[in-house]
């Protein structure tokens, strides 16, 4: 899906009405009280809750039970569906005239009854800088960040700003153990090299993809990376490695925050 900042394709009519109301004042947000105050303190005004979703039918791919291999059809499905949800959320933010989206949550849901269906949801709060400083990503999109309001404040205080959420995904089929291999290992302490290798490969592919996304947005680095290993109901030999983090770029040369006061909580 190519990105057009003025497009509202896939955003329903109701949402357009709501976004128009948001532009007229009265913001909505899922930030907590403390996050809300810190985001304001950092110089940003919340504009509105923005959401994007995609209900996705995941195709079929044959896997050789004896082979370690990436399931490219499934990887593409996971990528594409997330991209659709994120892009819709970004388009909503764009139509509010936002600089970016903070506290983004990206969830994947599976339905009990639909093996081939997955639900991708992106939710966050669109914000705009009060002084009108532009904080968009270099590619013109609103910045996105999955950092909490607290982490967002600290990051800005440390002279960095988020440019975008970057992710890497890899769906991998871990080969089953052959009879020969089983016989050789009976009664012995031995590493299951095949499995170890598969997990390494999958993790490496996911990390590499996340890294290259960060390079694309000209980031200095990625903070708050979370690495998830999930099977999404595909069975024990099919895993998804999913890496997600917030890419950051420096906004000043000064990167030291005021030395934190040491406190000892008395409520323990």
């Amino acid at each position, binding site marked *: 899906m190519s990105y057009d900042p003025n497009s509202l394709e896939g955003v329903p009519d109701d949402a357009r009405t709501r976004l128009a109301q948001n532009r007229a004042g009265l913001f909505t947000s899922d930030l907590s009280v403390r996050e809300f105050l810190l985001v304001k303190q950092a110089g940003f005004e919340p504009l509105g809750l923005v959401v994007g979703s995609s209900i996705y039918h*995941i195709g079929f791919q044959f896997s050789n039970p004896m082979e370690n291999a990436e399931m490219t059809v499934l990887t593409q499905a996971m990528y594409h569906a997330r991209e659709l949800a994120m892009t819709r959320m970004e388009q909503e933010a764009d139509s509010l005239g936002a600089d970016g989206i903070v506290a983004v949550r990206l969830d994947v849901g599976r339905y009990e009854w639909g093996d081939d269906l997955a639900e991708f949801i992106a939710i966050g709060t669109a914000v705009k800088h009060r002084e009108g400083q532009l904080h968009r990503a270099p590619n013109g999109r609103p910045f996105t960040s999955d950092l909490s309001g607290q982490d967002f404040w600290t990051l800005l205080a440390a002279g960095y700003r988020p440019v975008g959420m970057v992710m890497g995904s890899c769906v991998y089929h871990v080969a089953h153990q052959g009879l020969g291999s089983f016989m050789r290992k009976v009664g012995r302490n031995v590493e299951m090299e095949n499995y170890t290798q598969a997990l390494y490969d999958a993790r490496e592919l996911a990390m590499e993809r996340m890294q290259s996304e960060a390079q694309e947005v000209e980031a200095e680095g990625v903070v708050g990376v979370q690495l998830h290993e999930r099977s999404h109901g595909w069975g024990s030999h099919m895993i998804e490695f999913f890496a997600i983090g917030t890419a950051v770029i420096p906004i000043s040369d000064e990167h030291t925050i005021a030395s934190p006061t040491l406190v000892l909580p008395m409520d323990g």
Partner: protein
Amino acid sequence: MSGPFFGDDQPEPDERPAAIPDHARERLAGVAAGRVPFTSTLSANAFAALRGADIQPLCQVMGSSVYHVGWQITGWGRLNALRNQGYGTYRPDGSRPGIDRTTGLPLRLSWYGTPQELRTLGAAYNDARDRALARLSQEARLAGADAVVDVEVVQHPFGGRRDVIEFRAMGTAVRAPGLRGDAGPAFVNLTGQDVGVLLRGGQRPVGLVTATSAYLGTASLDTVIELRSLTGKRWRNFEYAEFADAWAYARNRALMHMRAQASDLGADGIIGIRWTQETREQDIEDSDYRFPGLIYVVHAIGTAIAGPAADGTPDVYTVMPMADRPGTQEAS
């Protein structure tokens, strides 16, 4: 527009709210007159935070409503029969396309793939919750409260029956002249500490906003035909745009309801929005096709706030807690 499915069944005004029992009235009158000590489930910290903001707790208040959902949730299978009678041919905008003059057939296939709001189902949740909150408000008034803090709204099926839902709202009634709204006590679904922090930030909570909306999404005829084909979509990656649409409509409708409530309260915005979503499979069978369908019931709740637009935020200092975080110390 009305009907068992798409009806807009609003309750008659004289049905609400039910009376509060006499002994409860007496107890609350005692609280209002200041004859009894205050009661609360507030922790010592929450209590201190509220007192620091000049807010005085009075007593626990509650409102509850057990509600029968007019259209049984287990009865969706009847949609097929109803649709054949023409009920399903309503369009989302409320118009009814009726009969195609050239073919003489009902214009019904256009119905599939378009999100349908299930108003009766949504209205049941909204009405039940409103009744519980109205009773909470009544109790708070009787206790002479300006606001109710730490409000928790709980919802669950009643007595194991899927067509009966219970809403219960509980909180601590407080005396706080600065929080009282024009329409009565303000409901605040924040902890005592959060109320304290918000007030120090120059903002004040003005009320609780909450809504439920229900939508049915069905696959379009094109999708169904493609799925049937052996060489078609069945093996490929594709997006069920119809379901994503229904989901987005449901979320939007809930958000719009909440915005309208916040606007009535004179709020500047809504924070802390929390969602819960129930998704149910509801395939719809035609004489020729089986249309995969999903029902989304989306509940949302948030806190409406008001305050100065800018420079109300307090100074923030960074601290480093010196207590060990749980799990950082090895067990000995």
